[in-house]
C-alpha cells in the first residue's frame, strides 16, 4: 500500500456513500470501516518513505502519522455518535471527503499545495449542515466565505518568499510574508472577529460538522503552520506573533463572556471551545515553552469537546425519543450524560483539576511576568462559560433529564464514560500528555513562537 491510499480510500468511500445515501447502514458501516482501516494503514506504513503520485512527493513523518491516526480516530468517534444517536444522515459522506482531502494536506510535501487544498477540505464539510436549521445554514455560509478567502494571502506570501530566496538581503519581503500569514491563520482558526461562525453553525441543536472542525481542523491548521515555520524560519517575526497572540486573547475573552448570553447548550459548548482555542493560540505565540502548553491545551480541548458533544448528542437523542413516547420518569443514565457534558465544558473553562486548568497554569507561568492583566482576562472568560453552563444545564435538567426514561442505548453511554475517564486522566496526569507532546514536537519546540 502507498501513502496516497490514505487520501484516495476515504474519497472513494465518500463517493459511494453519496450515491447510496439513503442506505443508512451502508453509510455508517462503510464510514466507520474506512476510518478504522485508514488508521491501521497509517500505523503500518513506513515512516519517511517518499512516494510519488500525481507528480507530487508524499511523505509520512512521525508527527504526520500521529496526526493522521488522531484524525481517523476522532472521525470514527464522531461517526459512532452519529450512528448511535441518530443525528442527521448527511454527515458521513462530507466528513469522509474532508478526511480524504485533509490526509492529502498532511501527506503532501508541497506546502503551497497543502494550503490550497485546505479550504476545499473545509468547504466540503458545509454539505453536512442540517437542512432545517436556519442559523446553522447561516453559520455554514459564513464559514464557507471565510475559509476560502485566505488563498490570496497564502499565494502572495509564497510569491514573496520565492522572491526573498532570490534576494536574501531584502528583509522587507520576509517581513511582509510573515504579516501575510496572519490573516489566513486568523480566518482558518476562526479567531476574533470570525469566532462566531462555528457558534452560529452549532446553535440549532447539535451539528457534528462544527465539532469535527474544533477537534480536527484546528490541529491540521496548526500542523501546517508549524511545518511552514520550520521550512521558513524567517517567518518568525515577533510583531506578527504578537498580533496572533492578541487575536487569541481577544477570542478567548469575547467567546467566554458571550457564553453567558447563550441559551442553547451547544452554543455554550461552541463558546467554550473557541475560548480555549484562543488561549492555546496565545500560548503558542509566546516564548519557548509556550508551544508545549498550547499543544497540551489543544489535546485537552479535543477530548473535552468530544466528551461534551457526545454527551449532548445522546441527551438530544433521548429527548427526541421521549417526546415520541411521552415518558416522564427520571433515569440515572441521563444524569451521567449531563455530568459528562458539564465536565467537558468545565475542562474548557479551565476549572481545576481538569486539563484546561493545567494548560492555563502552564502558559500563565510563562506569561505572568510580562502580562499581569492576563489572570483577570482569563478569569472573566472562565466565569462567562461557567455561568452560561449553569444556565443551560438548568434548562437541560428540566427539559431533558427529568423527562427521560429507559431509552438511552448502552453504547453512547459507554463511549461517553470512556471519554470522561480520558478527560479526567489528562487533568490528573498531565505529565503523560506533556511527554507525548515533547516526544512528537520535540524538534519544533525550540522554534517557539510557532
Amino acid at each position, binding site marked *: 500500500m502507498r501513502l496516497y491510499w490514505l487520501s484516495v480510500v476515504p474519497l472513494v468511500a465518500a463517493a459511494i456513500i453519496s450515491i447510496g445515501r439513503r442506505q443508512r447502514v451502508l453509510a455508517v458501516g462503510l464510514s466507520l470501516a474506512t476510518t478504522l482501516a485508514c488508521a491501521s494503514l497509517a500505523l503500518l506504513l513506513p515512516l519517511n518513505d517518499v512516494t510519488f503520485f500525481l507528480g507530487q512527493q508524499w511523505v509520512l513523518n512521525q508527527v504526520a502519522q500521529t496526526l493522521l491516526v488522531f484524525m481517523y480516530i476522532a472521525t470514527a468517534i464522531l461517526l459512532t455518535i452519529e450512528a448511535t444517536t441518530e443525528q442527521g444522515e448527511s454527515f458521513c459522506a462530507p466528513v469522509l471527503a474532508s478526511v480524504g482531502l485533509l490526509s492529502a494536506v498532511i501527506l503532501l510535501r508541497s506546502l503551497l499545495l497543502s494550503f*490550497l487544498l485546505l*479550504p*476545499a477540505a473545509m*468547504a466540503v464539510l458545509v454539505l453536512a449542515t442540517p437542512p432545517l*436549521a436556519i442559523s446553522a*445554514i447561516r453559520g455554514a455560509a459564513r464559514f464557507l*466565505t471565510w475559509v476560502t478567502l485566505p488563498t*490570496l494571502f497564502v499565494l*502572495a506570501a509564497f*510569491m514573496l518568499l520565492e522572491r526573498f530566496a532570490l534576494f536574501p538581503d531584502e528583509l522587507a519581503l520576509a517581513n511582509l510574508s510573515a504579516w501575510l500569514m496572519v490573516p489566513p491563520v486568523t480566518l482558518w482558526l476562526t479567531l476574533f472577529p470570525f469566532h462566531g461562525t462555528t457558534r452560529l453553525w452549532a446553535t440549532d441543536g447539535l451539528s457534528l460538522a462544527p465539532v469535527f472542525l474544533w477537534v480536527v481542523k484546528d490541529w491540521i491548521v496548526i500542523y501546517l503552520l508549524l511545518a511552514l515555520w520550520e521550512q521558513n524560519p524567517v517567518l518568525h517575526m515577533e510583531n506578527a506573533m504578537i498580533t496572533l497572540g492578541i487575536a487569541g486573547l481577544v477570542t478567548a475573552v469575547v467567546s467566554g463572556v458571550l457564553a453567558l448570553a447563550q441559551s442553547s447548550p451547544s452554543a455554550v459548548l461552541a463558546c467554550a471551545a473557541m475560548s480555549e482555542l484562543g488561549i492555546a493560540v496565545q500560548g503558542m505565540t509566546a516564548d519557548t515553552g509556550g508551544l508545549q502548553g498550547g499543544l497540551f491545551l489543544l489535546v485537552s480541548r479535543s477530548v473535552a469537546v468530544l466528551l461534551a458533544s457526545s454527551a449532548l448528542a445522546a441527551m438530544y437523542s433521548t429527548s427526541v425519543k421521549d417526546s415520541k413516547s411521552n415518558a416522564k420518569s427520571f433515569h440515572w443514565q441521563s444524569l451521567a450524560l449531563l455530568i459528562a457534558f458539564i465536565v467537558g465544558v468545565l475542562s474548557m473553562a479551565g476549572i481545576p483539576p481538569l486539563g484546561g486548568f493545567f494548560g492555563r497554569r502552564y502558559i500563565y507561568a510563562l506569561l505572568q511576568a510580562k502580562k499581569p492583566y492576563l489572570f483577570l482576562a482569563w478569569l472573566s472568560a472562565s466565569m462567562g462559560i461557567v455561568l452560561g453552563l449553569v444556565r443551560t444545564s438548568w434548562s437541560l435538567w428540566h427539559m431533558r433529564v427529568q423527562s427521560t426514561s429507559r431509552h438511552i442505548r448502552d453504547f453512547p453511554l459507554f463511549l461517553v464514560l470512556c471519554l470522561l475517564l480520558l478527560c479526567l486522566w489528562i487533568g490528573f496526569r498531565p505529565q503523560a500528555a506533556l511527554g507525548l507532546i515533547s516526544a512528537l514536537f520535540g524538534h519544533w519546540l525550540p522554534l517557539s513562537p510557532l
Partner: protein
Amino acid sequence: MLPTLLHLLDALSSRAPQLVVGLVICGAMLLIVSDHRLAILAFLVQRSIVIVLLWPAIGIPLAATSVIALIVIVVIYCITEWRWRGVEMSEPAHANRSRPSLTSLPFRALAASLAVLVTYGFVQTYNLNPLPPLVAFTVVWLIINSLFILFVADSALRTGLGILTFADGCRTLYALWQPNLLVWGLWGACDVLVALAASYLRSAGVIAAKSQPVGGHE
C-alpha cells in the same frame, strides 16, 4: 475546428483592453442584478473572459481545465436555481416577506460604482510592480468586486459567486507566477466544491424557510 478555435482565442486575447472593459461590465452586473439566472449568466461570461485573458500565459491544458470546471459550476448553479426557484416563488411567506434594503437595486448600483472607484483608486495609489497595469487592474477589480458581492449577498448562491470571483482574481495572479497543471486542476475542483456547497446551502435555506411559519424570523 481546433485550429480555428485557437486562432480565435489568440485574436481575442490580443484585445485585452476591451476584454477588461467586458470584465468590469460583467462584474458590475453580477453585483447589480438581483435575478440569480442573470447573475449566473454574468458569471459565465466573466469567467470566460478571464480564461481568454489568461490564454497566452496558461495554454491549452490549463484553459481546458478551467472550461470544464466552469461548465460543471454553471450546470450545478442552473440545476439548483431551476429546482428551487419555482418552490420559493410559490411560497406565500416569500411574497409577504419584506425585502431587506441590501437587495434593493439603487443600493446595488451604488455598491457597483463604489467598487469601480475603489479599484481605480487602489491601482492609481499603490505601485503593483512587477504586474503590468492591465493585469493589476484585472486582479484588483476581481478581488474588490468579489468582496462587494460577498458583502451584499442575500443568498448562498450569490455568496458562492462572490467566492468564485475571488478565486478568479487569485488565479489571474497565480497564472503569471508558476502555473502548474495539478494545482490548476485542484483549484478547479475546489471551485466545483464551493459551487456544490453554495448550491446545497441554497437548497437547505429554501427547505428551512418552507418549514418556518409565515412571518417567522429567518
